[in-house]
């Protein structure tokens, strides 16, 4: 391994470490609070969970800034898959669980809305309104195969 290549690999490893360390904390405690919120139908716990997850996302953006990089393809894919999976679990549970109450429903809708809002806000801050529109537009075209 030549020294430059090694230096680059270590730098990339350190960025990955920062991301995983950060999500290891924010993700685990965020999910735990979220589960407690849904389990006990408790707004405070649930919102605290979302706050930690959003804090995790903000922290990830800051890490990208410090390491002068952006989200890589794997991270974007993982994020979208997890978001989709949670949304699916939420919808299925809401439909199939008889004791699912208004607080749980409210928690789910609030959380997912806020997370989507934060994502949109990030894209607008990072790429501007026109840039965000272009990203969405190009994704739409790619999906539609046009």
């Amino acid at each position, binding site marked *: 391994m030549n020294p430059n290549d090694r230096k680059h690999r270590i730098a990339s490893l350190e960025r990955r*470490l920062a991301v995983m360390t950060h999500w290891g904390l924010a993700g685990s405690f965020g999910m735990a609070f979220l589960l407690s919120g849904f*389990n006990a139908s408790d707004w405070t716990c649930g919102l605290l969970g979302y706050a930690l997850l959003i804090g995790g996302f903000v922290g990830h953006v800051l890490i990208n800034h410090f390491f002068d990089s952006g989200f890589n393809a794997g991270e974007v894919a993982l994020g979208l898959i997890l978001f989709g999976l949670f949304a699916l679990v939420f919808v299925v549970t809401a439909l199939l669980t008889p004791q699912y109450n208004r607080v749980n429903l409210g928690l789910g809708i609030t959380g997912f809305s806020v997370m989507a809002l934060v994502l949109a806000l990030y894209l607008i801050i990072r790429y501007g309104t026109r840039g965000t529109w272009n990203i969405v537009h190009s994704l739409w075209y790619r999906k539609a195969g046009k």
Partner: protein
Amino acid sequence: MSQVLIWLLALLALYCAYCVLWGVSSARVQAGPADFLLASRRLPAWVFGLFATGATFGAWSLLGFPSLVMRDGLQFGQLALLAVTVPMTGVLFFKRQWLLGKRHGYVTPGEMLSDYYGGDALRIMVIAIALFGALPYAGLQLAAGGSLVQWVSGGAIPAHLAMWVLTLVLMLYLCIGGLRAAAYVGSLQGLLLCSGLLALGLVALWHLGADQGFEALMQALAKLGEGPVGPWGSSAQNYNAYLASPGVMQFTAGLGKEAPVGGIWTAAMVLSTCFAFMGIQASPAFSMLAFSCRDARGFGPQQVWVSGAGMGVLLVFFAVLAGLGADFLGATAVLNAAGLSLSRVLPELAPGQEGQLYAQYLLTLAAQSPWFTALLTVCALAAIHAMVALLVTTTGTIIVRDVMLRYMTPMADAARQKFYARCAIAALLGCALLLATFAPNAQVQLGALALGLSVQLWPALAGVCWIPWITREGAGVGLVAGSFVVLITEPLGATICQFLGFDLPWGRWPWTIHSAGWGIVVNIVFCVVVSWISNDKNDRAHRQAFHRFFAATVAMPLRQRFLRPVAWSLTLVWFFFAVGPGAILGNDLLGAPNGGIAAWVGGIPSLWLWQMIWWALGVMVLWLLAYPMRMASPPGPEQMDLIRQQAPG
């Protein structure tokens, strides 16, 4: 299978996978033994900050500290100020050791001491001290982790099984990735430790009453202060010993021979225990962690902000809250019998079972939030692993460099050095496990020596970093004398004496002074006297060369030297009032403990408020030493150029 057990197994599996992942990832960027042994001296500042915090405060702050606050009350809570005293060792020594590592290419503190003082005696003593840290002390931590898993799983996972499996995972990632893997995993472990402490305090507060929990605790403490209820009864000032320090010093024969009145945590005991814990960052493991840093940018923030401020607030407020709260949540039989408990959320913990407190707090969450019980268990295990990982990897390196390369196979190539290091790590963890499994009593006696012995390196390190007139003979004789005194003021010394056919006239920690305190006083006396006798001009010139390097690179500019007397005076004043004899004023200066809430300033017991005030002042003192005094701030660009010019390779 209970829900807690399922979540525990799932989260433990995730945690183990995370550890092994970073072991493998670290191995993939390894370029030689320097990487395995010392992370190629390229650890980033933030990784150092988190790992050093996790490894310094480890499991004792999470599992031990709140339990002892529960048992002994605010007189033990005084030790929350360890958050300030422990990083002071780092402020004094890390930056200068790092500089010497950069300049001379030292890998172990044995190499540094041997080069600076000449001869091999200090190198051998460093090996012995490192082994005491890596074997019995690490074994104690691993055993505590096993017990925690057993308690939380309700006995479904036996302690020994948990200990062996978790240690094998530790062994796997350390043997694959070396110090880099230990530090990379350690950054998350440090964060989990802090989260665990925060969560523990919040759980206690929640059980005391979600909205009025703190007020309820204060009222309960006020009621407690009215009489002498508690295991220690009243102090000499006739205050409840839970809420007051039992004096400056008590001239007792020591634990096991004579019990102190009103509790053991006199000002002398608190101060000398602080010395013992200050030994953590003077230990060979932390010298090597300092060597492994890419630059000096991490030292100041770790010592002042992460340890002093961050861990300080967690210990002074949250850990003390968890400990005191447990007394009124049903964990203390005496208070339950006196009708002082606010609820019975926790089961009564008999004397000797206080170590279960963390597990019992977690089990209160098991019915409603089993995932939290499991997550907070992983937090404690991670804290244990952080400390053990550092102790074991660095001791493995010390064995390779100071034993194998020095005395056995000096021509060993890179691959063989790495192989030896892996074998040493596996052997150390294996021995620690065997000791924990088959000889737990011996392990406790041996482990008790680790901190006291580590702090005995202080004069030797002070010589290297600050005081050129300390000679090899002075440092060596002081170290031996101090270590001997530590041994004979701990139970192991008494056991050895009994084996030899006579009894020591004192027990453990006579005059309510910790063995580390006795040891360091004797060490300093011997060091000063012998150095004065043995000063030799040629040796002094050799040592002076190191100090000229410091003067050229990191000394304070002349115009700022007026700060020195100010800073050191403030440090001494802080020690005197925060953890020294002056702390006795905190008993009632801010309200008599038996005066009730109305008499307490801010509605908080005087001693606790005293601790909070001196913690805040302590952070300022740390900052003063670290930054304006430049003891932990990174060197400027010109100094860095000079350091690079003088560095080998």
